[in-house]
């Protein structure tokens, strides 16, 4: 494998070196390098140190091509040695050099590397961004590489659960790959598209693409280039599509056939994968079959032995489902194991999936709920980010492309950069000024608002407390007594009625003091009136049309609302009225509210009623005035006046 990769790297490099001016000198060094790599006895570490010495030699020379080559090998070896930090660092160095020399092919190549290593480091959005950059450079010079870059992008999108995005990117990739002889990528794309359709439950299309993949593998070019192992994945996908469609016997047949395949017998990883899938399919078909448990457990053990983490996640999820309902404790254990493994490989989508099962099985969810939320947010963010990145590239038209190239040639890029930074500076300055102004204004507004709201909020807080706590407790007590068989019926009836009355009044307090919205003010006033109308009381009003509340400030609305409330509470509690009229009127910027009832009235001089004093204070506070006309036995009239 190593040699194939290295050889292909050299192949790419040698293709590009034909026109190099200092080719003689380079060829010499290049041959030396190649000789070393063709030597089987040299370990990766030794190769790396050799490459490093070459790197030092060519670093400060002008031999660009040789430097690129050395860097390609160096980063490749770093990644083989799992030194991803170094691989990424030198890929960036490589990128800088290629940009400096405006060498499009190597810029694209460097981005491709950054895409791969960042993906290995689970930095998915950086990886996606790099692949996207690589694609935008490759698309006009190399269809094969462009298709591959897009394929990688679509895989990332699938990984983060953005199936429609993945589908779009994969379809775009096909446009580049389908006209080339890169059948491996085409096969991968077909298979990938099929799995995305499977996730979207569009089985017909999934089936169509997987058949396309299988047909491709049987074409002359396919037979030559596609290895059996790639096809295996397609066949497993095909069986799983059958399974999802409920065609269990077809799926089982394929799995059984694959299990006796010589390739599978030798490959423990694939064998475990097929066993687990087969066990799960059999279970779906018949929940009480005796084979499933063993198949699933065997696959799990095998995967533990060969440390196939992704396989273990799948196994544990299968087992979670298997034991769910039979043994929830065990089921939960497997789900938690799946979660742990998913965290190990930092697969956000698997973490989310495992959490989904845990949440369903477990009761106290403080930690899981937070994690679920976090992961969900992160996935959403990633999806949005990747979508944004590719959307721009996708719609950049050719002209734009040409323009950028022209800019590169003319070195105008620097100028553009300068202009952009000046504009940015101005923008930041302006935004800063606006923001400060905004803050100052907001602060001022806030201050007045706070004063106005304070009283209101105290009222609300108290009423909320009464409502939320007392009313709930009252309802509990009521139910407790009502359902208590030991209390003699004679006492119970009386007690329950009494309690019910108290409960109802507790709820009334809150409904009375409860909040309102200034947005739909007329409607809120109507509800206020309704709330205080007892059965049999006739109410006439033009509350919905009398005053245009849109132009009245919130501060005034609150006071009007509370004043009217005082009048209505008095009406309900003391007046014994049977007819109530509330008329709203506007004349230019003056507003009037006439309240009238036919109740017993009050003698204002005799008993100062606190509620009415409140009304007076409130209306005076908003610069209006109020008059009461009432006497014992003659009903009650109030006339409120205020300006817009």
């Amino acid at each position, binding site marked *: 494998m190593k040699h194939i990769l290295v050889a292909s790297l050299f192949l790419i490099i040698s293709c590009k070196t034909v026109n190099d001016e200092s080719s003689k000198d380079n060829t010499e060094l290049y041959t030396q390098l190649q000789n070393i790599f063709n030597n089987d006895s040299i370990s990766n570490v030794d190769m790396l140190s050799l490459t490093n010495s070459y790197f030092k030699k060519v670093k400060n020379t002008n031999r660009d091509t040789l430097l690129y080559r050395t860097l390609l090998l160096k980063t490749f070896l770093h990644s083989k040695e799992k030194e991803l930090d170094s691989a990424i660092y030198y890929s960036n160095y490589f990128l800088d050099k290629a940009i400096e020399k405006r060498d499009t092919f190597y810029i694209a190549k460097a981005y491709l590397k950054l895409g791969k290593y960042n993906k290995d480091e689970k930095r998915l959005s950086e990886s996606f961004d790099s692949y996207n950059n690589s694609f935008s450079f490759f698309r006009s010079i190399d269809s094969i590489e462009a298709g591959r870059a897009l394929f990688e992008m679509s895989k990332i999108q699938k990984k983060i659960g953005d199936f429609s995005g993945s589908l779009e990117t994969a379809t775009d990739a096909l446009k580049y790959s389908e006209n080339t002889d890169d059948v491996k990528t085409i096969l991968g794309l077909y298979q990938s598209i099929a799995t995305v359709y499977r996730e979207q439950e569009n089985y017909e299309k999934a089936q169509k693409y997987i058949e396309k993949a299988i047909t491709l593998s049987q074409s002359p070019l396919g037979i030559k280039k596609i290895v059996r192992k790639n096809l295996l994945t397609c066949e497993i996908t095909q069986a799983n599509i059958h399974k999802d469609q409920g065609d269990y016997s077809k799926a089982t047949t394929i799995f059984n056939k694959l299990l006796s395949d010589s390739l599978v017998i030798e490959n423990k990883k694939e064998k475990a994968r097929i066993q687990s899938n087969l066990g799960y399919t059999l279970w779906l078909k018949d929940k009480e079959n005796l084979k499933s448990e063993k198949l699933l457990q065997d696959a799990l053990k095998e995967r533990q032995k060969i440390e196939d983490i992704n396989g273990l996640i799948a196994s544990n999820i299968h087992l979670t489902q298997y034991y769910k309902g039979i043994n929830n404790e065990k089921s939960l254990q497997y789900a938690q194991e799946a979660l742990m493994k998913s965290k190990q490989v930092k697969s956000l989508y698997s973490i989310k999936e495992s959490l989904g099962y845990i949440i369903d099985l477990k009761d106290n969810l403080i930690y899981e709920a937070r994690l679920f939320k976090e992961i969900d947010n992160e996935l959403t963010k990633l999806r949005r980010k990747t979508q944004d990145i590719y959307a721009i590239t996708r719609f950049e038209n050719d002209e734009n492309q040409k323009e950028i190239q022209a800019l590169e040639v003319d070195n105008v890029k620097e100028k553009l950069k300068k202009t952009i930074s000046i504009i940015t500076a101005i923008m930041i300055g302006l935004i800063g000024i606006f923001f400060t102004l905004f803050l100052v204004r907001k602060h001022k507004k806030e201050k007045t608002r706070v004063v106005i709201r304070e009283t209101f909020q105290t009222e609300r807080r108290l009423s909320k407390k009464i409502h939320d706590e007392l009313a709930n407790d009252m309802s509990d007590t009521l139910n407790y007594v009502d359902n208590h068989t030991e209390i003699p019926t004679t006492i119970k009836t009386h007690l329950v009625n009494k309690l019910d009355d108290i*409960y109802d009044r507790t709820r009334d307090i809150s409904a009375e003091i409860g909040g309102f919205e200034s947005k739909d003010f007329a409607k809120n006033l*109507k509800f206020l009136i*309704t709330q205080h109308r007892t059965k049999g009381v006739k109410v*006439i009003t*033009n509350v919905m049309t009398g005053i245009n509340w849109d132009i009245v400030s919130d501060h005034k609305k609150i006071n009007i609302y509370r004043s009217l409330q005082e009048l209505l509470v008095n009406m309900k509690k003391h007046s014994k009225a049977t007819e109530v009229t509330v008329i709203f009127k506007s004349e230019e910027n003056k507003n009037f509210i006439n309240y009238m009832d036919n109740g017993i009235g009050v003698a204002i001089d005799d008993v100062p009623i606190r509620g009415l004093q409140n009304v007076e204070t409130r209306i005076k506070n908003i610069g209006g005035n109020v008059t009461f006309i009432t006497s014992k036995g003659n009903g009650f009239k109030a006339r409120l006046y205020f300006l817009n």
Partner: protein
Amino acid sequence: MFKKIITAEDQDTTHRGVESILKEVVPSVQKTKYCDDAFIKIKASLQENAPYEALITDLQFEEDHRDREITSGEELIAAVKKIIPDIKIIVFSVEKGIGRIKKLFDEYGIHAFVAKGRDESLHIKKALEAVYAKKSYCTPKIKQLLRSVDDIDEIGEEDIKILDFLSKGLSQRQISETLTPSCSLSSVEKNIGRLKVLLNARNPVQLISLAKDRGII
């Protein structure tokens, strides 16, 4: 009947009656004490392709040691509706404020409102049955309260104009000609008839006098 429902209710010790009724009627009942838990369970059920069919929720959730994202029944309903638009929602609460209840039906699209209190388990059962049959349900007192919104007699701008013109001595024909937007004679007559009933007046003269008394004109 529903097969899988979820409840959100923070009163722990209570409503045993409701609980046992639910268990009797629905095979799978998931209890939660926090809106956040309810929401996340609903989300997970969707992921497993076995979404909850109905949600029974309180409106008030008391604050405790736990940080909360969703703090009220309304927020929970809105969030849940967003992910499962056709889920049935039953509100189970002490709320009596008409504005809030009306809003639940009109804006939050709930299907039933059951007031806590006497016979609550009976009403929960009735509500489940009604909602399952695609009907809505309210406990009687609340139903009466909701109805009384429509019991209020409203008079509009036109009514006030008609009364005003009448008081200035215009005939019904003249009123129909003067009104903007214009109004046919028959509808002026009809309106005056309605106002007479409303204010309990026997003739136009008494109507004007009563309207003046009541401050309408």
